[in-house]
């Protein structure tokens, strides 16, 4: 007797693959290629010339540094959230779990305006910092807060299932063999969680680099100080300088790609070590 384990036929595969390829090329591949060729119009030297501008370089530095800082914060905050959500039971847990996805669904401009309201000098939180001479909105600190807000679901949602999957026995046996809670966490749990933490942080980082909507409201957009790369792209578009805009985008894309690639390598290595 022939046992069919999966009742799918070749035809289905053909259609699903066809649709996948069609949609991914229409939505991702062709636009990205367009971006690539559009910016190549000014040549490699033209692209480099765009980045000779000090303003663009300082925006590049700002975007990547605040992106990095916020990703690191998200690594810790996101991990903590995921841990609490999996390991503890408390009232309104389901509600908190749902709230975490809000940054995904909320238009980022709304988040930006709300955060600016709270953190500006007469806002609910900002007014407490004002007497100490600490400004949050319209400084890089404000940008980091906005980026933490939009990025942390990435870490939570990638780590959460992995924590759920961790067998209880792993910790129990570690404790039985005499490990302290810290040793159990550091030597037994963390190696298992590393790959997913890296993946989540990488995604949060990549998202931060490109974030525009929430940041323009909270950053103040002062050239050389709080001006981010996506804003400069918009600036170039406003001047009908499509090629300069796309070349900034291209460099952002390539840099993010390299970062993601490195993170993936690290992740792979971490998982290999596990097995």
């Amino acid at each position: 007797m022939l046992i069919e384990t999966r009742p799918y036929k070749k035809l289905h595969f053909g259609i699903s693959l066809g649709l996948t390829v069609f949609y991914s090329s229409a939505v991702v591949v062709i636009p990205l290629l367009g971006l690539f060729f559009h910016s190549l119009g000014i040549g490699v030297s033209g692209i480099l010339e765009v980045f000779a501008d000090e303003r663009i370089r300082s925006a590049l530095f700002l975007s990547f540094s605040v992106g990095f800082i916020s990703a690191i914060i998200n690594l810790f905050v996101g991990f903590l959230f995921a841990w609490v959500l999996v390991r503890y039971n408390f009232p309104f847990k389901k509600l908190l779990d749902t709230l975490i996805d809000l940054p995904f669904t909320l238009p980022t401009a709304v988040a930006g305006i709300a955060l600016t309201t709270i953190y500006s000098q007469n806002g609910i939180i900002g007014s407490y910092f004002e007497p100490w001479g600490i400004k949050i909105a319209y400084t890089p600190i404000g940008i980091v807060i906005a980026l933490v807000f939009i990025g942390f679901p990435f870490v939570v949602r990638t780590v959460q299932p992995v924590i759920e999957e961790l067998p209880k026995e792993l910790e129990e046996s570690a404790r039985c063999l005499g490990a302290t809670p810290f040793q159990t966490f550091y030597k037994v749990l963390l190696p298992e969680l590393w790959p997913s933490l890296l993946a989540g942080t990488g995604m949060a980082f990549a998202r931060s680099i490109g974030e525009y909507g929430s940041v323009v409201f909270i950053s103040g957009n002062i050239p050389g100080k709080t001006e981010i790369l996506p804003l400069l792209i918009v600036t170039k578009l406003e001047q009908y300088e499509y090629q300069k805009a796309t070349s900034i985008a291209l460099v952002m894309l390539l840099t993010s790609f390299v970062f993601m690639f490195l993170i993936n390598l690290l992740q792979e290595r971490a998982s290999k070590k596990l097995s």
Partner: protein
Amino acid sequence: MKIDTRNPNLKSTISAILCIFLSVMSFSSLASEGTFLHVSFDPTRELYEEINKAFLKEWKSKKGNDFAIQQSHGGSGKQARAVIDGLDADVVSLALSYDIDSISTKSGLIEANWQKKLPNNSVPYYSTIVFLVRKSNPKKIKDWDDIVKPGVAIITPNPKTSGGARWNYLAAYGFAKRKYKSDEKATEFVKALFKNTSVLDTGARGSTTTFVQRGIGDVLITWENEAKLSLDEEKRSGKNTLEVVYPSESIKAETPVAVVTKTAKEKGNLEKATAYLEFLYTKEGQSIIAKHFFRPTDAAVTKSSAKEFPNIKLFSLSDLGETWESAQKKHFADAGVFDAIYKTP
């Protein structure tokens, strides 16, 4: 024929066909026909809602038929780009003639001589740049000279991203140029102005929010209609924290309109589009414009709404010896004056 939905083969075929059908549908609906689209900039939304109602009423009484007008609002430059990239606008009304010129030169949808087609260089209404300050004017701001003094915090949007902000910039520049009779002094002046600016929002509405809601800054440089709108809003919510200050001299911010001839012709809307823009110049259109705090160009309506619009000395861009093209190149393009302001500390 009975469709057996249990048959997975048929089911997936149907869903595949449906997918393709839906995507084709959504593509074809982009090429909309039989609609009338007006593409405009941000602060004119309420104005044109009222204009449209009045115009359609008049159109119906004259021609006997009805049609719907769709409005699209956004930043002026962004809207111009959308039209260049294929948004099917029949008419455009933007914040600067530079944006309409760009549509004309980059897409050819509008004739080069568009500005000659309607009265008053195709400018049915205009506005000017004024100051909004805190109640009782604690920093004693009376004129442009007062806002560049050290210790005054200015809020103005970024001229790189906002068409309206370019008028703000040119108002300050023009004032200094006319007063000190030198380009260099004028550049120094705007440099001092932006030194006093701590937040550069991407659009005019953002700046208003920063100043009014967040309480940041001593003075907001803004369009007269935006300032009056803020006062109106405060009045309605029972607050009274703001004051408008008219400087001794300011720029005439001319906001032009144009028929997107090629598109309108293709869609068979040319007659409607022309009549629509001409309506803006009628008594009725002009009174609606004045009601929404834009300055009318019609002499009689100007007279009857004089109370709303104090008489201040206005200079135009051409009084500064500039066209939009030259101003754009000199001040706002890459390596222009605005970039230079932020280059040297």
